[in-house]
Protein backbone atom coordinates (compact mmCIF):
# COMPACT_ATOMS: atom_id res chain seq x y z
CA UNK A 1 0.00 0.00 0.00
CA UNK A 2 1.12 3.63 -0.49
CA UNK A 3 2.81 5.70 2.15
CA UNK A 4 6.28 5.66 3.69
CA UNK A 5 7.45 2.13 4.35
CA UNK A 6 8.36 2.75 7.96
CA UNK A 7 4.96 4.32 8.65
CA UNK A 8 3.13 1.39 7.10
CA UNK A 9 5.27 -0.92 9.22
CA UNK A 10 4.31 0.94 12.38
CA UNK A 11 0.62 0.71 11.58
CA UNK A 12 1.00 -2.95 10.63
CA UNK A 13 2.76 -3.68 13.91
CA UNK A 14 -0.01 -1.91 15.78
CA UNK A 15 -2.61 -4.02 13.98
CA UNK A 16 -0.77 -7.23 14.80
CA UNK A 17 -0.61 -6.18 18.44
CA UNK A 18 -4.37 -5.55 18.39
CA UNK A 19 -4.96 -8.92 16.74
CA UNK A 20 -2.82 -10.78 19.27
CA UNK A 21 -4.35 -8.90 22.18
CA UNK A 22 -7.91 -9.54 21.02
CA UNK A 23 -7.04 -13.23 20.61
CA UNK A 24 -5.92 -13.18 24.21
CA UNK A 25 -9.16 -11.49 25.23
CA UNK A 26 -11.15 -14.26 23.61
CA UNK A 27 -9.13 -16.92 25.43
CA UNK A 28 -9.26 -15.14 28.78
CA UNK A 29 -12.94 -14.33 28.52
CA UNK A 30 -13.74 -17.98 27.98
CA UNK A 31 -11.43 -19.16 30.73
CA UNK A 32 -12.34 -16.61 33.39
CA UNK A 33 -15.96 -16.10 32.31
CA UNK A 34 -15.47 -12.35 32.09
CA UNK A 35 -17.84 -10.76 29.56
CA UNK A 36 -16.39 -9.23 26.46
CA UNK A 37 -17.76 -8.35 23.06
CA UNK A 38 -16.96 -11.64 21.38
CA UNK A 39 -18.01 -10.53 17.92
CA UNK A 40 -16.00 -7.30 18.18
CA UNK A 41 -12.88 -9.02 19.47
CA UNK A 42 -13.18 -11.75 16.85
CA UNK A 43 -13.59 -9.17 14.10
CA UNK A 44 -10.57 -7.26 15.34
CA UNK A 45 -8.43 -10.41 15.24
CA UNK A 46 -9.31 -11.00 11.60
CA UNK A 47 -9.13 -7.32 10.66
CA UNK A 48 -5.80 -6.86 12.37
CA UNK A 49 -4.24 -9.69 10.40
CA UNK A 50 -5.81 -8.54 7.13
CA UNK A 51 -4.80 -4.91 7.58
CA UNK A 52 -1.24 -5.83 8.50
CA UNK A 53 -1.06 -7.78 5.25
CA UNK A 54 -2.39 -4.82 3.27
CA UNK A 55 0.08 -2.41 4.85
CA UNK A 56 3.14 -4.64 4.50
CA UNK A 57 3.18 -7.04 1.59
CA UNK A 58 5.48 -9.44 3.43
CA UNK A 59 2.78 -10.04 6.01
CA UNK A 60 0.15 -10.88 3.44
CA UNK A 61 -1.37 -14.30 4.04
CA UNK A 62 -1.44 -16.50 0.91
CA UNK A 63 -5.18 -16.94 0.85
CA UNK A 64 -7.44 -17.52 -2.14
CA UNK A 65 -8.69 -14.49 -3.99
CA UNK A 66 -12.03 -13.32 -2.71
CA UNK A 67 -11.73 -15.01 0.67
CA UNK A 68 -11.13 -11.80 2.59
CA UNK A 69 -14.00 -10.09 0.80
CA UNK A 70 -16.26 -12.98 1.74
CA UNK A 71 -15.15 -12.94 5.36
CA UNK A 72 -15.70 -9.23 5.81
CA UNK A 73 -18.89 -9.35 3.82
CA UNK A 74 -20.18 -11.89 6.29
CA UNK A 75 -18.97 -9.67 9.09
CA UNK A 76 -20.86 -6.75 7.61
CA UNK A 77 -24.02 -8.83 7.48
CA UNK A 78 -23.52 -9.89 11.12
CA UNK A 79 -22.96 -6.39 12.43
CA UNK A 80 -25.72 -5.02 10.24
CA UNK A 81 -28.11 -7.53 11.81
CA UNK A 82 -26.86 -6.57 15.27
CA UNK A 83 -27.45 -2.92 14.50
CA UNK A 84 -31.00 -3.63 13.35
CA UNK A 85 -31.62 -5.76 16.42
CA UNK A 86 -30.38 -2.97 18.67
CA UNK A 87 -32.87 -0.59 17.10
CA UNK A 88 -35.73 -2.92 17.96
CA UNK A 89 -34.75 -3.43 21.55
CA UNK A 90 -31.93 -3.44 24.11
CA UNK A 91 -28.95 -5.71 23.69
CA UNK A 92 -29.59 -8.58 26.09
CA UNK A 93 -26.30 -10.41 25.94
CA UNK A 94 -23.10 -9.19 27.59
CA UNK A 95 -21.17 -11.12 24.96
CA UNK A 96 -22.38 -9.04 21.98
CA UNK A 97 -21.28 -5.61 20.91
CA UNK A 98 -23.47 -2.74 22.02
CA UNK A 99 -22.58 -0.44 19.14
CA UNK A 100 -22.58 -2.45 15.95
CA UNK A 101 -22.66 0.44 13.47
CA UNK A 102 -18.94 1.30 13.69
CA UNK A 103 -17.99 -2.34 13.20
CA UNK A 104 -20.39 -2.56 10.27
CA UNK A 105 -18.59 0.38 8.68
CA UNK A 106 -15.24 -1.25 9.42
CA UNK A 107 -16.30 -4.42 7.62
CA UNK A 108 -17.64 -2.46 4.65
CA UNK A 109 -14.39 -0.50 4.54
CA UNK A 110 -12.39 -3.72 4.51
CA UNK A 111 -14.44 -5.04 1.60
CA UNK A 112 -13.96 -1.72 -0.18
CA UNK A 113 -10.20 -1.77 0.30
CA UNK A 114 -9.82 -5.37 -0.78
CA UNK A 115 -11.86 -4.74 -3.90
CA UNK A 116 -9.92 -1.62 -4.91
CA UNK A 117 -6.42 -2.37 -3.67
CA UNK A 118 -5.30 -4.71 -6.45
CA UNK A 119 -6.13 -2.15 -9.17
CA UNK A 120 -4.38 0.61 -7.28
CA UNK A 121 -1.23 -1.46 -6.84
CA UNK A 122 -1.11 -2.18 -10.58
CA UNK A 123 -1.34 1.51 -11.42
CA UNK A 124 1.35 2.43 -8.93
CA UNK A 125 3.70 -0.22 -10.33
CA UNK A 126 3.13 1.00 -13.85
CA UNK A 127 3.68 4.62 -12.95
CA UNK A 128 6.86 3.97 -10.99
CA UNK A 129 7.56 5.30 -7.51
CA UNK A 130 5.05 8.02 -6.91
CA UNK A 131 4.49 10.29 -3.98
CA UNK A 132 0.89 9.22 -3.68
CA UNK A 133 -0.86 6.02 -4.47
CA UNK A 134 -2.87 6.33 -7.65
CA UNK A 135 -6.37 4.94 -7.64
CA UNK A 136 -8.05 3.43 -10.65
CA UNK A 137 -10.93 5.24 -12.30
CA UNK A 138 -13.32 2.92 -10.46
CA UNK A 139 -11.73 3.89 -7.18
CA UNK A 140 -11.92 7.57 -8.06
CA UNK A 141 -15.64 7.20 -8.60
CA UNK A 142 -16.06 5.84 -5.10
CA UNK A 143 -13.51 8.08 -3.42
CA UNK A 144 -16.27 10.08 -1.75
CA UNK A 145 -17.45 6.85 -0.14
CA UNK A 146 -13.93 6.26 1.15
CA UNK A 147 -13.84 9.78 2.56
CA UNK A 148 -17.19 9.28 4.29
CA UNK A 149 -16.04 6.03 5.85
CA UNK A 150 -12.75 7.58 6.92
CA UNK A 151 -14.49 10.52 8.55
CA UNK A 152 -16.97 8.17 10.24
CA UNK A 153 -14.23 5.98 11.65
CA UNK A 154 -12.15 8.91 12.83
CA UNK A 155 -15.30 10.35 14.38
CA UNK A 156 -15.76 7.01 16.12
CA UNK A 157 -12.24 7.34 17.52
CA UNK A 158 -13.12 10.79 18.85
CA UNK A 159 -16.33 9.42 20.37
CA UNK A 160 -14.31 6.70 22.09
CA UNK A 161 -11.91 9.33 23.40
CA UNK A 162 -14.82 11.22 24.90
CA UNK A 163 -15.82 8.08 26.78
CA UNK A 164 -12.33 7.41 28.09
CA UNK A 165 -12.18 8.52 31.71
CA UNK A 166 -8.83 7.47 33.23
CA UNK A 167 -10.03 7.81 36.81
CA UNK A 168 -13.43 6.22 36.47
CA UNK A 169 -13.51 2.68 35.13
CA UNK A 170 -17.30 2.76 34.93
CA UNK A 171 -17.31 5.47 32.31
CA UNK A 172 -14.74 3.70 30.21
CA UNK A 173 -17.31 1.06 29.43
CA UNK A 174 -19.68 1.02 26.52
CA UNK A 175 -22.81 3.17 26.67
CA UNK A 176 -26.09 1.79 27.86
CA UNK A 177 -28.81 2.80 25.42
CA UNK A 178 -31.67 1.30 27.44
CA UNK A 179 -30.63 3.06 30.66
CA UNK A 180 -29.95 6.23 28.74
CA UNK A 181 -33.46 6.27 27.38
CA UNK A 182 -34.85 5.85 30.87
CA UNK A 183 -32.99 8.84 32.29
CA UNK A 184 -33.68 12.50 31.97
CA UNK A 185 -31.02 14.22 29.88
CA UNK A 186 -28.96 16.93 31.51
CA UNK A 187 -30.22 20.29 30.27
CA UNK A 188 -27.85 22.34 28.23
CA UNK A 189 -25.63 24.59 30.29
CA UNK A 190 -25.85 22.55 33.44
CA UNK A 191 -22.37 21.13 33.06
CA UNK A 192 -20.77 23.69 35.32
CA UNK A 193 -22.91 22.56 38.21
CA UNK A 194 -22.69 18.91 37.29
CA UNK A 195 -20.86 18.02 40.48
CA UNK A 196 -23.78 19.18 42.61
CA UNK A 197 -26.53 18.20 40.21
CA UNK A 198 -25.03 14.74 39.77
CA UNK A 199 -26.05 13.67 43.24
CA UNK A 200 -29.44 15.34 43.09
CA UNK A 201 -30.37 14.03 39.70
CA UNK A 202 -29.02 10.61 40.54
CA UNK A 203 -31.58 10.47 43.34
CA UNK A 204 -34.29 11.74 41.06
CA UNK A 205 -33.48 9.24 38.37
CA UNK A 206 -33.10 6.32 40.76
CA UNK A 207 -36.76 5.45 40.38
CA UNK A 208 -36.50 5.44 36.62
CA UNK A 209 -33.35 3.40 36.80
CA UNK A 210 -34.94 0.90 39.15
CA UNK A 211 -37.78 0.34 36.77
CA UNK A 212 -35.45 0.19 33.81
CA UNK A 213 -33.14 -2.27 35.49
CA UNK A 214 -35.84 -4.90 35.39
CA UNK A 215 -35.48 -4.97 31.62
CA UNK A 216 -31.96 -3.59 31.38
CA UNK A 217 -29.49 -5.81 29.57
CA UNK A 218 -26.94 -7.73 31.57
CA UNK A 219 -24.19 -5.96 29.65
CA UNK A 220 -20.63 -5.18 30.62
CA UNK A 221 -21.71 -1.97 32.22
CA UNK A 222 -24.52 -3.47 34.34
CA UNK A 223 -24.93 -3.07 38.07
CA UNK A 224 -22.70 -4.74 40.65
CA UNK A 225 -24.11 -8.30 40.62
CA UNK A 226 -23.08 -8.82 36.97
CA UNK A 227 -19.53 -10.09 36.27
CA UNK A 228 -17.01 -7.36 35.58
CA UNK A 229 -16.30 -6.65 31.99
CA UNK A 230 -12.89 -7.70 30.73
CA UNK A 231 -10.50 -4.74 30.57
CA UNK A 232 -12.93 -2.23 29.09
CA UNK A 233 -10.34 0.52 28.65
CA UNK A 234 -8.04 -1.78 26.73
CA UNK A 235 -10.94 -2.80 24.54
CA UNK A 236 -11.65 0.85 23.92
CA UNK A 237 -8.03 1.51 22.99
CA UNK A 238 -8.10 -1.41 20.55
CA UNK A 239 -11.16 0.02 18.88
CA UNK A 240 -9.51 3.42 18.65
CA UNK A 241 -6.33 1.97 17.16
CA UNK A 242 -8.36 0.03 14.63
CA UNK A 243 -10.41 3.08 13.69
CA UNK A 244 -7.40 5.31 13.28
CA UNK A 245 -5.45 2.82 11.18
CA UNK A 246 -8.41 2.15 8.95
CA UNK A 247 -8.98 5.89 8.59
CA UNK A 248 -5.36 6.30 7.50
CA UNK A 249 -5.68 3.53 4.94
CA UNK A 250 -8.89 4.98 3.52
CA UNK A 251 -7.31 8.43 3.27
CA UNK A 252 -4.45 6.90 1.28
CA UNK A 253 -6.99 5.50 -1.13
CA UNK A 254 -8.71 8.80 -1.88
Amino acid at each position, binding site marked *: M*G*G*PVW*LSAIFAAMMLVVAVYCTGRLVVARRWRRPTELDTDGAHVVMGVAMAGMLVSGLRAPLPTGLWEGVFGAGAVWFGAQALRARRGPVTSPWRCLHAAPHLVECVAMVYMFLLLPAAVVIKSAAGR*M*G*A*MAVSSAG*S*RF*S*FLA*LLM*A*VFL*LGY*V*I*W*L*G*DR*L*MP*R*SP*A*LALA*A*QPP*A*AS*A*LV*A*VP*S*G*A*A*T*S*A*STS*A*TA*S*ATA*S*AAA*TASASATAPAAC*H*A*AAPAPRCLAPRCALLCKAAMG*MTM*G*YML*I*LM*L
Partner: protein
Amino acid sequence: MSESVAVARAAARAGPADQARFAALEPRRKLQLALALVWLLDGILQFQPWMFSKAFPQMLADSAQGNPAVLAAPITWSAGLIGHHLTVLNALFATIQVALGLGIACRASVKYALGASVAWSLGVWWFGEGFGGVLAGTASPVNGAPGAVILYALLAVLLWPADTDPADTDPGAPFVAGRAVGRRAAQALWLVLWGSLAFFSLTPASRAPQAISGTISAMAAGEPSWLAWIDSHAASALAHQGLAASIVLAAAFGIIAAGIYASARSVIIAALVMTVALWLAQGLGGIFTGMGTDVESAPLLALIALAFWPSATAAEAASATASATASEAGAA
Protein backbone atom coordinates in the same frame (compact mmCIF):
# COMPACT_ATOMS: atom_id res chain seq x y z
CA MET B 1 -16.16 25.63 38.02
CA SER B 2 -14.83 24.66 34.63
CA GLU B 3 -16.69 22.11 32.64
CA SER B 4 -13.87 19.59 32.50
CA VAL B 5 -13.26 19.66 36.25
CA ALA B 6 -16.97 19.38 36.98
CA VAL B 7 -17.32 16.45 34.66
CA ALA B 8 -14.26 14.72 36.08
CA ARG B 9 -15.44 15.12 39.65
CA ALA B 10 -18.90 13.93 38.81
CA ALA B 11 -17.38 11.01 37.00
CA ALA B 12 -15.42 10.05 40.09
CA ARG B 13 -18.69 9.53 41.90
CA ALA B 14 -20.53 8.24 38.89
CA GLY B 15 -22.46 5.04 39.07
CA PRO B 16 -24.46 3.26 36.42
CA ALA B 17 -27.28 5.79 36.75
CA ASP B 18 -24.94 8.64 35.82
CA GLN B 19 -23.31 7.01 32.85
CA ALA B 20 -26.12 7.96 30.56
CA ARG B 21 -25.86 11.55 31.71
CA PHE B 22 -22.40 11.81 30.34
CA ALA B 23 -23.55 10.11 27.22
CA ALA B 24 -25.88 13.06 26.62
CA LEU B 25 -23.48 15.63 25.23
CA GLU B 26 -24.13 19.31 25.65
CA PRO B 27 -23.73 21.57 22.58
CA ARG B 28 -20.32 22.95 23.52
CA ARG B 29 -18.97 19.46 24.04
CA LYS B 30 -20.35 18.36 20.67
CA LEU B 31 -18.56 21.25 18.98
CA GLN B 32 -15.37 20.42 20.87
CA LEU B 33 -15.59 16.87 19.57
CA ALA B 34 -16.18 18.16 16.04
CA LEU B 35 -13.06 20.29 16.40
CA ALA B 36 -11.20 17.26 17.71
CA LEU B 37 -12.30 15.31 14.65
CA VAL B 38 -10.96 18.00 12.35
CA TRP B 39 -7.60 17.98 14.14
CA LEU B 40 -7.43 14.19 13.95
CA LEU B 41 -8.28 14.26 10.26
CA ASP B 42 -5.60 16.89 9.67
CA GLY B 43 -3.08 14.71 11.46
CA ILE B 44 -3.93 11.72 9.29
CA LEU B 45 -3.72 13.90 6.17
CA GLN B 46 -0.28 15.00 7.31
CA PHE B 47 0.79 11.36 7.17
CA GLN B 48 0.09 11.20 3.41
CA PRO B 49 3.06 10.26 1.23
CA TRP B 50 3.16 13.67 -0.48
CA MET B 51 3.91 15.34 2.85
CA PHE B 52 7.11 13.30 3.05
CA SER B 53 8.27 14.56 -0.34
CA LYS B 54 10.32 17.68 -1.12
CA ALA B 55 7.19 19.35 -2.45
CA PHE B 56 5.92 19.92 1.10
CA PRO B 57 8.77 22.17 2.33
CA GLN B 58 8.71 23.89 -1.06
CA MET B 59 5.04 24.71 -0.50
CA LEU B 60 5.92 26.10 2.92
CA ALA B 61 8.70 28.22 1.47
CA ASP B 62 6.34 29.61 -1.18
CA SER B 63 4.07 30.97 1.55
CA ALA B 64 6.79 33.48 2.47
CA GLN B 65 6.38 35.36 -0.79
CA GLY B 66 4.94 38.84 -0.45
CA ASN B 67 5.35 38.99 3.33
CA PRO B 68 7.54 41.61 5.01
CA ALA B 69 11.16 40.47 5.14
CA VAL B 70 11.24 40.29 8.93
CA LEU B 71 8.34 37.81 8.83
CA ALA B 72 9.31 36.01 5.63
CA ALA B 73 12.85 35.14 6.67
CA PRO B 74 11.79 32.79 9.51
CA ILE B 75 9.34 31.10 7.14
CA THR B 76 12.08 30.44 4.63
CA TRP B 77 14.43 29.27 7.37
CA SER B 78 11.89 26.85 8.82
CA ALA B 79 11.05 25.49 5.36
CA GLY B 80 14.74 24.81 4.84
CA LEU B 81 15.04 23.10 8.20
CA ILE B 82 12.03 20.93 7.42
CA GLY B 83 13.51 20.08 4.03
CA HIS B 84 16.68 18.80 5.70
CA HIS B 85 14.86 16.74 8.32
CA LEU B 86 11.71 16.06 6.40
CA THR B 87 10.78 12.60 7.64
CA VAL B 88 11.27 13.26 11.32
CA LEU B 89 9.70 16.71 11.36
CA ASN B 90 6.70 15.86 9.25
CA ALA B 91 6.02 12.77 11.34
CA LEU B 92 6.28 15.00 14.40
CA PHE B 93 3.84 17.53 12.92
CA ALA B 94 1.36 14.80 12.12
CA THR B 95 1.69 13.23 15.54
CA ILE B 96 1.13 16.59 17.22
CA GLN B 97 -2.08 17.13 15.29
CA VAL B 98 -3.31 13.63 16.09
CA ALA B 99 -2.46 14.22 19.75
CA LEU B 100 -4.35 17.51 19.74
CA GLY B 101 -7.43 15.79 18.35
CA LEU B 102 -7.27 12.97 20.87
CA GLY B 103 -6.48 15.39 23.67
CA ILE B 104 -9.55 17.50 22.96
CA ALA B 105 -11.65 14.34 22.71
CA CYS B 106 -10.56 13.12 26.12
CA ARG B 107 -12.38 15.09 28.82
CA ALA B 108 -9.48 14.95 31.24
CA SER B 109 -7.17 16.81 28.87
CA VAL B 110 -9.51 19.03 26.89
CA LYS B 111 -8.24 22.26 28.44
CA TYR B 112 -4.59 21.44 27.91
CA ALA B 113 -5.22 20.31 24.35
CA LEU B 114 -7.23 23.41 23.47
CA GLY B 115 -4.50 25.61 24.93
CA ALA B 116 -1.83 23.74 23.03
CA SER B 117 -3.89 23.96 19.84
CA VAL B 118 -3.94 27.76 20.11
CA ALA B 119 -0.16 27.90 20.36
CA TRP B 120 0.28 25.36 17.56
CA SER B 121 -2.21 27.18 15.32
CA LEU B 122 -0.46 30.51 15.75
CA GLY B 123 2.85 28.92 14.90
CA VAL B 124 1.53 27.19 11.81
CA TRP B 125 -0.25 30.37 10.74
CA TRP B 126 3.12 32.10 10.64
CA PHE B 127 5.54 29.38 9.50
CA GLY B 128 3.16 27.21 7.52
CA GLU B 129 0.65 29.56 5.90
CA GLY B 130 2.56 32.84 5.81
CA PHE B 131 -0.31 34.51 7.68
CA GLY B 132 -2.76 33.25 5.09
CA GLY B 133 -1.61 35.79 2.54
CA VAL B 134 -3.12 38.60 4.62
CA LEU B 135 0.08 40.64 4.64
CA ALA B 136 1.07 39.57 1.15
CA GLY B 137 -2.12 40.87 -0.42
CA THR B 138 -3.03 37.46 -1.85
CA ALA B 139 -5.74 36.60 0.67
CA SER B 140 -9.10 35.67 -0.75
CA PRO B 141 -12.03 33.84 0.84
CA VAL B 142 -11.87 31.32 -1.99
CA ASN B 143 -8.26 30.39 -1.22
CA GLY B 144 -8.84 30.12 2.50
CA ALA B 145 -8.28 33.61 3.86
CA PRO B 146 -7.53 34.57 6.58
CA GLY B 147 -5.82 31.21 6.84
CA ALA B 148 -7.59 28.02 7.89
CA VAL B 149 -5.30 27.32 10.81
CA ILE B 150 -6.04 30.60 12.63
CA LEU B 151 -9.67 29.53 12.74
CA TYR B 152 -8.64 26.54 14.86
CA ALA B 153 -7.28 28.98 17.42
CA LEU B 154 -10.45 31.05 17.30
CA LEU B 155 -12.57 27.95 17.82
CA ALA B 156 -10.43 26.85 20.74
CA VAL B 157 -11.08 30.20 22.40
CA LEU B 158 -14.80 30.18 21.69
CA LEU B 159 -15.17 26.59 22.90
CA TRP B 160 -12.99 27.01 25.96
CA PRO B 161 -14.49 24.89 28.79
CA ALA B 162 -15.22 27.76 31.15
CA ASP B 163 -18.11 30.10 31.68
CA THR B 164 -18.01 33.81 32.33
CA ASP B 165 -21.03 33.28 34.59
CA PRO B 166 -20.40 30.25 36.86
CA ALA B 167 -24.10 29.60 37.26
CA ASP B 168 -24.46 29.80 33.48
CA THR B 169 -27.77 31.54 33.89
CA ASP B 170 -26.72 34.69 32.10
CA PRO B 171 -29.35 35.27 29.43
CA GLY B 172 -26.86 37.51 27.69
CA ALA B 173 -24.88 34.46 26.55
CA PRO B 174 -27.51 32.67 24.49
CA PHE B 175 -25.08 30.69 22.40
CA VAL B 176 -22.12 28.41 22.98
CA ALA B 177 -19.53 30.87 21.71
CA GLY B 178 -20.58 33.44 24.29
CA ARG B 179 -20.12 31.19 27.31
CA ALA B 180 -16.37 31.45 27.61
CA VAL B 181 -15.65 34.98 26.39
CA GLY B 182 -19.00 36.66 26.96
CA ARG B 183 -21.69 37.59 24.48
CA ARG B 184 -20.30 40.94 23.40
CA ALA B 185 -16.78 39.67 22.87
CA ALA B 186 -18.06 36.71 20.88
CA GLN B 187 -20.18 38.93 18.67
CA ALA B 188 -17.22 41.22 18.15
CA LEU B 189 -15.09 38.27 17.05
CA TRP B 190 -17.83 37.23 14.66
CA LEU B 191 -17.96 40.75 13.25
CA VAL B 192 -14.19 40.85 12.78
CA LEU B 193 -14.04 37.42 11.16
CA TRP B 194 -16.82 37.80 8.64
CA GLY B 195 -16.04 41.46 8.15
CA SER B 196 -12.49 40.48 7.21
CA LEU B 197 -13.86 38.02 4.67
CA ALA B 198 -15.91 40.85 3.19
CA PHE B 199 -12.76 42.97 3.04
CA PHE B 200 -10.69 40.23 1.41
CA SER B 201 -13.44 39.79 -1.17
CA LEU B 202 -12.74 43.28 -2.43
CA THR B 203 -8.94 43.16 -2.59
CA PRO B 204 -7.24 42.94 -6.00
CA ALA B 205 -6.60 39.24 -5.34
CA SER B 206 -10.37 38.72 -5.49
CA ARG B 207 -11.76 41.42 -7.73
CA ALA B 208 -9.46 40.92 -10.75
CA PRO B 209 -11.47 39.65 -13.74
CA GLN B 210 -10.10 36.11 -13.57
CA ALA B 211 -9.14 36.02 -9.91
CA ILE B 212 -11.94 33.94 -8.39
CA SER B 213 -12.49 31.94 -11.57
CA GLY B 214 -8.82 31.09 -11.82
CA THR B 215 -8.59 30.05 -8.19
CA ILE B 216 -11.56 27.71 -8.51
CA SER B 217 -10.40 26.17 -11.79
CA ALA B 218 -6.96 25.54 -10.30
CA MET B 219 -8.63 23.42 -7.61
CA ALA B 220 -10.01 21.02 -10.22
CA ALA B 221 -6.67 19.38 -10.89
CA GLY B 222 -6.42 15.93 -9.34
CA GLU B 223 -9.98 15.88 -8.07
CA PRO B 224 -12.58 13.18 -8.69
CA SER B 225 -14.59 13.78 -11.85
CA TRP B 226 -17.76 14.86 -10.06
CA LEU B 227 -15.94 17.51 -8.01
CA ALA B 228 -13.87 18.65 -10.98
CA TRP B 229 -17.11 19.07 -12.93
CA ILE B 230 -18.55 21.33 -10.21
CA ASP B 231 -15.39 23.43 -9.99
CA SER B 232 -14.84 23.74 -13.72
CA HIS B 233 -18.44 24.79 -14.34
CA ALA B 234 -18.30 27.28 -11.47
CA ALA B 235 -15.06 28.68 -12.87
CA SER B 236 -16.62 28.99 -16.32
CA ALA B 237 -19.64 30.79 -14.91
CA LEU B 238 -17.41 33.26 -13.08
CA ALA B 239 -14.96 33.82 -15.93
CA HIS B 240 -14.43 37.56 -16.53
CA GLN B 241 -16.90 38.22 -13.69
CA GLY B 242 -14.32 38.78 -11.00
CA LEU B 243 -15.51 42.24 -9.99
CA ALA B 244 -19.18 41.34 -9.85
CA ALA B 245 -18.49 38.12 -7.98
CA SER B 246 -16.29 39.88 -5.46
CA ILE B 247 -18.95 42.53 -4.83
CA VAL B 248 -21.61 39.87 -4.28
CA LEU B 249 -19.29 37.96 -1.96
CA ALA B 250 -18.42 41.09 -0.03
CA ALA B 251 -22.08 42.02 0.37
CA ALA B 252 -22.97 38.52 1.57
CA PHE B 253 -20.12 38.40 4.07
CA GLY B 254 -20.90 41.90 5.24
CA ILE B 255 -24.54 41.04 5.89
CA ILE B 256 -23.49 37.93 7.76
CA ALA B 257 -21.00 39.92 9.80
CA ALA B 258 -23.44 42.60 10.89
CA GLY B 259 -26.46 40.37 11.10
CA ILE B 260 -25.25 38.61 14.24
CA TYR B 261 -26.59 41.56 16.20
CA ALA B 262 -30.06 41.12 14.74
CA SER B 263 -31.58 37.86 13.58
CA ALA B 264 -28.98 35.33 14.63
CA ARG B 265 -30.65 32.20 13.35
CA SER B 266 -31.17 33.35 9.77
CA VAL B 267 -27.68 34.84 9.65
CA ILE B 268 -26.17 31.58 10.82
CA ILE B 269 -28.12 29.63 8.22
CA ALA B 270 -26.84 32.03 5.57
CA ALA B 271 -23.32 31.57 6.91
CA LEU B 272 -23.67 27.79 6.70
CA VAL B 273 -24.86 28.02 3.10
CA MET B 274 -21.86 30.21 2.27
CA THR B 275 -19.49 27.74 3.86
CA VAL B 276 -20.87 24.91 1.72
CA ALA B 277 -20.35 26.98 -1.42
CA LEU B 278 -16.89 27.99 -0.25
CA TRP B 279 -15.88 24.42 0.50
CA LEU B 280 -16.88 23.30 -2.98
CA ALA B 281 -14.93 26.21 -4.46
CA GLN B 282 -11.96 25.18 -2.31
CA GLY B 283 -12.13 21.69 -3.75
CA LEU B 284 -12.96 20.26 -0.32
CA GLY B 285 -9.51 21.31 0.80
CA GLY B 286 -7.80 19.21 -1.84
CA ILE B 287 -8.41 16.08 0.22
CA PHE B 288 -8.84 13.95 -2.88
CA THR B 289 -5.60 15.12 -4.48
CA GLY B 290 -3.31 13.53 -1.93
CA MET B 291 -1.77 16.95 -1.26
CA GLY B 292 -4.34 18.40 1.11
CA THR B 293 -2.85 19.32 4.46
CA ASP B 294 -6.18 20.21 6.04
CA VAL B 295 -9.87 20.54 5.29
CA GLU B 296 -9.46 24.29 4.49
CA SER B 297 -11.34 27.13 6.10
CA ALA B 298 -14.95 26.37 5.16
CA PRO B 299 -15.68 23.54 7.64
CA LEU B 300 -14.14 25.61 10.41
CA LEU B 301 -16.30 28.59 9.48
CA ALA B 302 -19.28 26.24 9.70
CA LEU B 303 -18.26 25.15 13.21
CA ILE B 304 -17.87 28.77 14.24
CA ALA B 305 -21.32 29.51 12.88
CA LEU B 306 -22.79 26.59 14.81
CA ALA B 307 -21.13 27.92 17.97
CA PHE B 308 -23.34 30.98 17.60
CA TRP B 309 -26.55 29.02 17.16
CA PRO B 310 -29.06 30.26 19.74
CA SER B 311 -29.41 27.76 22.55
CA ALA B 312 -32.77 26.20 23.44
CA THR B 313 -33.05 28.18 26.67
CA ALA B 314 -32.37 31.42 24.87
CA ALA B 315 -34.93 30.57 22.23
CA GLU B 316 -37.49 29.74 24.91
CA ALA B 317 -36.78 33.00 26.71
CA ALA B 318 -37.16 34.95 23.50
CA SER B 319 -40.38 33.12 22.69
CA ALA B 320 -41.75 33.76 26.16
CA THR B 321 -40.89 37.44 25.89
CA ALA B 322 -42.55 37.68 22.49
CA SER B 323 -45.68 35.92 23.79
CA ALA B 324 -45.86 38.19 26.81
CA THR B 325 -45.51 41.25 24.61
CA ALA B 326 -48.20 40.02 22.25
CA SER B 327 -50.63 39.24 25.06
CA GLU B 328 -50.04 42.65 26.63
CA ALA B 329 -50.70 44.32 23.30
CA GLY B 330 -53.89 42.25 22.90
CA ALA B 331 -55.09 43.12 26.40
CA ALA B 332 -54.45 46.78 25.74
